[in-house]
């Protein structure tokens, strides 16, 4: 479930000093007034 993937210049909008853990792709995040699965389908 929690596959590790290296963050690269092609899949990250800004450089970050860490690698992203993919985890569960359906985990919800909130941005602005809405929360969604970063697929992105509005929840």
């Amino acid at each position, binding site marked *: 479930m929690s596959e590790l993937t290296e963050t690269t210049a092609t899949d990250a909008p800004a450089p970050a000093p*860490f690698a*992203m853990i993919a985890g569960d792709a359906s985990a919800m995040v909130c941005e602005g007034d809405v929360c969604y699965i970063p697929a992105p389908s509005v929840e």
Partner: protein
Amino acid sequence: MGLGIPEPMHPFALIVSEPIKIDIWSDIACPWCYIGKRHLEEGITSLGDDAPDVEITYHSFELAPDTPIDFEGSEVDFLAKHKGLPAERVHEMLDHVTGVAANAGLDYHFDTLQHTKTLKAHELLHFAKQLGRQLELSERLFRAYFTEGRHVGRVDELVELATEVGLDADEAREALESSRFAGAVQADIAQAQAYGINGVPFFVIDGKYGVSGAQPSEVFAQAITQVAGEKAA
């Protein structure tokens, strides 16, 4: 030992014994941030005796800076008005979140929730951090907002909540009215932007791994275990 002579310390002893730092960007008004908080806690607890020491720090992320402090209407009204979503659809969304929250042991009441600007709540979290009470205050603010329908945008209400976690009322009020932690809030937001963080919750584990969203507890447990192993290696 026994001769009064300190044993030489292993050169890596201090490094190995350092707690794992977990930096969390979140907003009090973010339903998935409270759920993610619980999942993280469950993940740590699931490690039992093997759980390494962790040091959790909350960072500010203001989801909707244009939100008014006082909004007349329900959460459904707010989302329907701002997003143009049908009320029926908003109800479905909120029912879904409420169900997931219940599975995490949280009791959400969107019908009594008071939508508000969270800037002052973030300032208070920085004030509490300075005094070592940030984790307690974070939990208190989330519960006040999602479960109790408290107004976490008003100074008077925030001061009352601050005292409930052992903070001094006068000092908390001064911190809020002077806005002296506003710069710290903006610094957190700027750091999030620099990292490319667009949504919350967002977790950075020991500065090495990023975890986005309200991930299941197993993901947090696995990430923490991995970091602990790497630190001990």
